[in-house]
């Protein structure tokens, strides 16, 4: 399996989805070598995590997030920083070398950064190649046209792949629309959530100010995610302005980093709500969990979200969500509020209505949590296992 990140060295949902899917696949007796582009100590015992590195490189360390530069330390002691595109080329050569040294039945590659490697391997080793599409370039680019190099590799790889897995119907139709791939070649395997029992210990929250203000009747509306065009946060802030007009006792918490950071800080000021919008950088661990916990409502306003795990993570902490209809998760998660990302009127209305009605929040929480309890990655893993089996049979038959 070819991937780009795994928790806790992930910047978002991709790493989590790969981790959870592989964990469940391992329970179905899949024997997985997972090739990633860096060195790190992962606490993983259900598969082999293998760093892809050129022969003369001793160590690759991540600096910052998954989409930042990485530091290559060579055997001769020198070091260099590589950009994301450089890493992408280095990774494909190294992954090919590893693939040549291994025996395997199916190659399963996650998202465009690994697709060039998949193409090279397909060329040199005749094996079934399954591409797992967690997002396509037009999702990530929002209203922009996107990166042509990325679109090229996505298109080429998808054309040659034996099978394409889309994380949602939303993504499947994007693939058909953007790359003209035959519908029959694409299977939807939804992401999921593994319900865990959490204690929502409200007294021990990192966001002490928000916690304190809740005692005075304030509500907290949160978003956790990268600050990029795809995530639709300007509309969220515009809605926040309207919500504060009718519900002044509301704080908005925005947890994340990204290229829209400055624009969003500016916008909050222009809207005159800087006192009510709390920005933090990207967080991990407790501060990440506490953002969900302290919120009365989680909002995922994405312009285009192939899946979008955060609302499921939120309900895991017993926080209900408002999600954009342009997301994969809205296909599978029923007990949440839904809105078109562009409909600021309705977004404001739903946020204000939810935080003004404890009954509504409670119902969304209880019903959503019940639904979440029934979710499992095992269903997704079972679907994947069947797909693997079919390709094995096909490969067997054509030999």
């Amino acid at each position, binding site marked *: 399996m070819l991937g780009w990140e795994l928790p806790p060295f992930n910047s978002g949902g991709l790493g989590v989805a790969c981790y959870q899917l592989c964990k469940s696949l391992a329970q179905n007796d899949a024997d997985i070598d997972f090739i990633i582009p860096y060195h790190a100590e992962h606490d993983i015992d259900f598969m082999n995590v293998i760093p892809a590195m050129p022969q003369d490189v001793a160590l690759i360390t991540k600096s910052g997030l998954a989409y930042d530069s990485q530091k290559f330390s060579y055997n001769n002691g020198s070091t260099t920083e590589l950009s994301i595109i450089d890493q992408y080329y280095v990774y494909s050569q190294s992954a090919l070398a590893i693939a040549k040294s291994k025996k395997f039945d199916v190659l399963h590659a996650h998202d465009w950064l690994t697709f060039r490697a998949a193409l090279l391997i397909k060329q040199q080793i005749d094996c079934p190649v399954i591409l797992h599409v967690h997002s396509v370039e037009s999702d990530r680019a929002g209203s922009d046209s996107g990166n042509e190099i990325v679109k090229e590799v996505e298109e080429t790889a998808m054309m040659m792949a034996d099978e394409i897995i889309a994380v949602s119907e939303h993504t499947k139709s994007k693939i058909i629309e953007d790359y003209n791939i035959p519908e029959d070649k694409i299977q939807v395997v939804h992401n999921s959530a593994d319900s865990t029992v959490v204690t929502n210990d409200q007294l021990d929250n990192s966001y002490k*100010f928000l916690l304190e203000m809740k005692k005075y009747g304030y509500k907290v509306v949160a978003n956790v995610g990268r600050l990029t065009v795809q995530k639709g946060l300007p509309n969220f802030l515009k809605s926040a302005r309207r919500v504060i007009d009718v519900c002044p006792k509301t704080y908005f918490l925005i947890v994340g980093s990204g290229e829209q950071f400055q624009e969003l800080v500016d916008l909050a000021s*222009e809207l*005159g709500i800087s006192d009510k919008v709390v920005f933090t950088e990207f967080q991990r661990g407790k501060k990440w969990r506490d953002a969900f916990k302290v919120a009365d409502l989680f909002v995922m306003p994405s312009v285009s979200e192939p899946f979008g795990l955060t609302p499921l993570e939120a309900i895991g902490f017993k926080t209900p969500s408002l999600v954009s209809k342009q997301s994969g998760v809205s296909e599978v998660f029923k007990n949440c509020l839904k809105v078109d990302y562009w409909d600021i009127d309705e977004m404001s209305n739903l946020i204000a209505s939810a935080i003004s009605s404890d009954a509504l929040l409670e119902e969304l929480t209880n019903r959503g949590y019940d639904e979440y309890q029934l979710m499992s990655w095992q269903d997704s893993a079972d679907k994947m296992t069947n797909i693997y089996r079919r390709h094995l049979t096909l490969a067997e038959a054509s030999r």
Partner: protein
Amino acid sequence: MSNTKSIVLYLHVHQPFRIRHYTAFDTAINSDYFDSPYDSPASNEQVLKKVTAKSYIPTNTILLRLLNRYPDFRFSLSITGTVLEQMERWAPEALRSFQELVATGRVEIVAETYHHSLAFFYSMSEFEIQVKMHEDKVQKLFGSKPKVFRNTELAYNNDLAKWAEAKGYTGILAEGWDPVLGWRNPNFVYRPAGTQNIALLMKNYKLSDDLAFRFSDKNWSEWPLTASKYIKWLESSKDSSNINLFMDYETFGEHQWADSGIFDFLEHLPSEWLKNDQHNFRTVSEVIEQNEKVDDIDVPNTITWADTERDLSAWLGNPMQNTAINNLYELTDKIHETKDLQLIEDWRKLQTSDHFYYMCTKYFSDGDIHAYFSPYDSPYEAHINFMNAYRDIVYRITQKGIDIDG
């Protein structure tokens, strides 16, 4: 009219209490907004010690020597309460050196707000408290009572002049901005429109900025600038009684580094100027006493000494700045209700204009003078640190049982 010509040198000494990297996770937990680790660019102690070594001590050494050597040498200083507090804590030797200057009787201290704030534009009562606090501090440390007023950033308009006259000040300082002066030049004593007794001294920004901004600029056609060349420029303005050289004190050794030759320049300025026996130095109140007011100056809209706009846009030019300062002053009544002196003082330290200057996005991309003075990577970071500290102030008010929305 006599032919005497005075240099009115006025230096402004100020350091803010910079806010540390203060996150949402500090709000409501730590109220130590101003305590950066020593190695951080926002460390007030580190900056003060650096400026003491590079600027205050070497400059005061020269100034004291000049005062001893030339009985006619004299000048004026404004020193904010925030920098005085910092000197008391971290550089008592710097404070002593200023006290030695004032003890000569030829260095006049100018009045201003203790916290270097823009309170005049937001809360008159708060403004007056801060002016009084500064007066008390100056009285205590220097044993003198200021007679001439300068507002933060030389922010000035007719209303401020009327206020200063009513408070009994004999003079007030402003930028000698051409659109305000019209055909006139800044080198005389003027009267603010609508006042009787108070005098207005206007900065000769060209000659002041030759030192404050251009002195070390090797691309400047006049570089290098010597004291004798500079004095020729001062002499060439025949139509003048007083040349008002107003600038940041830190021009000497901090904005213009020692290796630029700025200290040699300062050392030679008095001897070059005093070669002509019609020339002298005067403090701000002396030049006001000794000269007639030649005309009225009308300034209905606020002017300052900053940027090419000479308005408040460096502090209040974008929504981040406006929302931050409005939010802060909206707390005025509630904060006084708490009667918590430490809380009120922290709130006042957030009023220091520098915090809003750090949020300035004008020319942000050019990495200009605004960026040079900011301890933060971007105006956005400055804004976020500030708002997190602001929310901690809100939290502390609520902890006193005061309804923040009531």
